[in-house]
C-alpha cells in the first residue's frame, strides 16, 4: 500500500485515495468547498490546493490521488507522495482564493442564517486576508425561490456546484443547473420544474455558505443559540440519524447526521419537517379517568391504583397493544405487564421511494416495527378479529400517536372491552376510547432503543424535556406491573435494557455505551 507523507507525518493509505481524503481521515485540515464525500469530485473551488513534491504547480488535493510508484522512483526511497499543506506558497494561494471567492460575496454575516456554521466564514477567519483589494461595486442579484422550501441568495453563492451535483447524483432529479458563464453564472432552475423533490432540503445542508436556505428555518434564530442533540428520525422505518437543534424545549430544525450504515449524509423532507406536527397538538400531561361526563384529571397514584385494581379483577382476560412507534423498552415492559398476550394496530403506510444513490424512504411510517416484533414475539397482527374469540376484559394500549386514525372495527372492539388503558401523549382517536389515559412521552422526548427495518439498533436520545407530569413510556407499564406483582420496580431505562437482554438473546449485549452515535446491527440478523 502506498505511503504518503503529509506535513512530516507518514500515512499508509489505500491506493487511489485522494490526498484530501487521506488528510481528512487523519485530522489534518485542508480547507475545501466543492468537495463533498458523497458527491463527484469537480475541483472547482480551488480551495484545497496543496504542494506536492515533484509537481511544478500547486495541486487540488481533492483530485490528486495517491498511487503506487515503483520503488526506484520513490521519494527518499520510501514515499509515494510527499504533500505539504502548510507551505508558504499554499498559504498565500489560500489567501488569494479566498479573496477571489469574497469579491462578490456580501459581508452580511449578521443577517445570514449560515453564520456560525459557515465554511466561508470559518476559512476566511482562519486562512483569509483581513482586507479585500476589490473596490468596485459588488454584483447584486435578488433572491429567488428554487422550490417551495428552498430559497437562493445569489450574492452569497460561491458556485461550488455541490447542490447541482446533489440533484444529479443523489436525488437523480437534476432540477438545478449552472446558468450562463463567467461573471454571469448562477445556480438556476427551470421554471416549469422547480426543486421540489423529497430530498430538496439537503441542498441547504450541503451548501457550504449561506446561499441555499430552507424557508422553514430562515431568520428563525442564530445557530449559536441552539443546543444540538444527536437523535434518530422517527418518521419511517429507515431510522435516519439526525441532529436536533433546539432552544428552550422548542425544536427549530433537524439536520441529517452522518451514518454510513443508515442514511449516509442525507435525510428526506418528510422527516426534516415532520417535527412541526408535534408543535400544536392537544398534549396530555396529567392522568385522566373517564367518568360520566368525560375525562377528569387525576393523580398518578390514583390512576395506577385504579389500573391495578382493574387488572386484578380481569384475571386472565388481559391483553396489550404494542406500538411500532414506541421504543423497544416500552414495548418490552408492556409485554411483561400483559404476559405476552400482545397485538398491534394496523400499520400506517405510504409509498416507498428509492433513489438512484441508494437513499431510501420506507413505506412503513413507523420507526420501530422490527424492534417491536423482536421484543413481543407472539404478536398478533390482526388483533381486532382475533379478539372476538377471546374473553378480553382488560386492554393496555400503547398509542401510536397523532397520525393514528381508528377504523370502525377497532372502535367497536374497544367499546366492548370492560377496561381500556391508553398510554398516549395526545388526545387521539385511540385516547378518546379509553377508560383511563396515562400521559406518556411525545416523540423527541423519548429515550431508549429503536431497531430500524434493516435490524440496526440505535440509541434514541431525548431532545426536549418531558412535559408536565408525563412519565417515560417504559416506566408506566413498569409501575403498574411492579405494583400488581408486588415486586420492586426498575429504576432506569438501562436496567430495562438489561432485563430485555435476558429475555431476548439478540438484545443481550446492547447498552447505550456500545450503541453510541452510530448504533449496532443485531446479532446475526443485520444485513452487513
Amino acid at each position, binding site marked *: 500500500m502506498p505511503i504518503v507523507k503529509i506535513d512530516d507525518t507518514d500515512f499508509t493509505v489505500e491506493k487511489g485515495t485522494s490526498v484530501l481524503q487521506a488528510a481528512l481521515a487523519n485530522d489534518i485540515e485542508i480547507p475545501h468547498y466543492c468537495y463533498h464525500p458523497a458527491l463527484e469530485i469537480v475541483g472547482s473551488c480551488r480551495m484545497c490546493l496543496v504542494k506536492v513534491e515533484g509537481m511544478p504547480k500547486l495541486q487540488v488535493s481533492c483530485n490528486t490521488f495517491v498511487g503506487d510508484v515503483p520503488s526506484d522512483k520513490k521519494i527518499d526511497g520510501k514515499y509515494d507522495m510527499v504533500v505539504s499543506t502548510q507551505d508558504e506558497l499554499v498559504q498565500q494561494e489560500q489567501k488569494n482564493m479566498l479573496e477571489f471567492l469574497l469579491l462578490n460575496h456580501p459581508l452580511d454575516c449578521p443577517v445570514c442564517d449560515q453564520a456560525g456554521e459557515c465554511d466561508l466564514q470559518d476559512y476566511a477567519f482562519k486562512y483569509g486576508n483581513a482586507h479585500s483589494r476589490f473596490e468596485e461595486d459588488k454584483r447584486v442579484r435578488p433572491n429567488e425561490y428554487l422550490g417551495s422550501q428552498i430559497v437562493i441568495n445569489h450574492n452569497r453563492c460561491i458556485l461550488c456546484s455541490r447542490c447541482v451535483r446533489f*440533484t*444529479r447524483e443523489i436525488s437523480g*432529479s*437534476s*432540477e*438545478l*443547473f*449552472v*446558468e*450562463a*458563464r*463567467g*461573471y*454571469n453564472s448562477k445556480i*438556476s*432552475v*427551470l*421554471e*416549469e*420544474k422547480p426543486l421540489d423533490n423529497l430530498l430538496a432540503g439537503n441542498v441547504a445542508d450541503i451548501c457550504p455558505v449561506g446561499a441555499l436556505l430552507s424557508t422553514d428555518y430562515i431568520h428563525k434564530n442564530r445557530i449559536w443559540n441552539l443546543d444540538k442533540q444527536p437523535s434518530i428520525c422517527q418518521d419511517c422505518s429507515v431510522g435516519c440519524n439526525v441532529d436536533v437543534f433546539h432552544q428552550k424545549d422548542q425544536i427549530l430544525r433537524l439536520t441529517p447526521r452522518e451514518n454510513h450504515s443508515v442514511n449516509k449524509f442525507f435525510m428526506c423532507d418528510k422527516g426534516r419537517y415532520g417535527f412541526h406536527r408535534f408543535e400544536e397538538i392537544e398534549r396530555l400531561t396529567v392522568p385522566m379517568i373517564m367518568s360520566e361526563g368525560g375525562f377528569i384529571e387525576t393523580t398518578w397514584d390514583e390512576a395506577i391504583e385504579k389500573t391495578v385494581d382493574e387488572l386484578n379483577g380481569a384475571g386472565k382476560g388481559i391483553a396489550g397493544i404494542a406500538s411500532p412507534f414506541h421504543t423497544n423498552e416500552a414495548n418490552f415492559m408492556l409485554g411483561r405487564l400483559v404476559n405476552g398476550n400482545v397485538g398491534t394496530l394496523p400499520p400506517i403506510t405510504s409509498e416507498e421511494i428509492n433513489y438512484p444513490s441508494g437513499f431510501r424512504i420506507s413505506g412503513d411510517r413507523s420507526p420501530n416495527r422490527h424492534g417491536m416484533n423482536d421484543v413481543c414475539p407472539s404478536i398478533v397482527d390482526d388483533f381486532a378479529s382475533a379478539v372476538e374469540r377471546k374473553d378480553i376484559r382488560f386492554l393496555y394500549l400503547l398509542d401510536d400517536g397523532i397520525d393514528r386514525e381508528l377504523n370502525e372495527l377497532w372502535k367497536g372492539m374497544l367499546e366492548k372491552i370492560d377496561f381500556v388503558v391508553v398510554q398516549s401523549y395526545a388526545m387521539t382517536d385511540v385516547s378518546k376510547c379509553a377508560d383511563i389515559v396515562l400521559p406518556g412521552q411525545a416523540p423527541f422526548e423519548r429515550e431508549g432503543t429503536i431497531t430500524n427495518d434493516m435490524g440496526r439498533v440505535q440509541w434514541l436520545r431525548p431532545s426536549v424535556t418531558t412535559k408536565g407530569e408525563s412519565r417515560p413510556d417504559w416506566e408506566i407499564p413498569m409501575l403498574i406491573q411492579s405494583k400488581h406483582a408486588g415486586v420492586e420496580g426498575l429504576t432506569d431505562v438501562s436496567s430495562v435494557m438489561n432485563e430485555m437482554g435476558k429475555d431476548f438473546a439478540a438484545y443481550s449485549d446492547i447498552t447505550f455505551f456500545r450503541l453510541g452515535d452510530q448504533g449496532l446491527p443485531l446479532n446475526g440478523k443485520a444485513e452487513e
Partner: protein
Amino acid sequence: MSNNGAPKQSFSFADPDKVQNILSQYPDKQSALLPLLHLAQSEEGYISSAVIDTISEIVDCHQALVMDCVSFYTMLYTKPHGRHIIQVCQTLSCSLNGADGLVDHVTAKCGIKPGETTDDNRFTLMKVECLGSCGTAPVVQVNNDYHESLTLEEFEKLLESLK
C-alpha cells in the same frame, strides 16, 4: 431564465434523418447535444423551451442539463434576435481596450441596450464573455465573423456596412 413568458409550443426537427445522422456520429447520445442544438437553431432561429424539451427527449437527459449547455454558449440564443448579432467581448483585455465604448456607441446610435433588438430587427446587441482573441482586443463578433482591434471609427464603418 431568459425565455420567461414565452408561449410553450411543440417543436420537431424538419428532417429526422439528419438527427439520426448526427446521433450516429457519436458514441453516446448526450455527445450529440451541441450539434442538435445548432441544427435546431438553424431551423427555429433560436432555442425555445420547446426545442429544449424535444432535444432532452432525443438525447435522454434532463431539460436542466440542456439549459445548462445552452446558457453556457453565447452562440446559442434563447430569444428571437435581429439580422445582425453584435457580440462585444467584455473580458479583461477587451474591456481595457475600450469595449465599453463600443457598447455605448451602439446604444447611442441605435437606441438599444445590451440584450435588446432594434425595432427594425436589424441589430441585436450582446455583451459576451471572452471570445478568445485577447491579443487583438477589442473584439466584436458580428454573426460568425470576428472584427479585431477595432477603433470607434472602424466600428462605425462596420455598422454602416451592415444592412
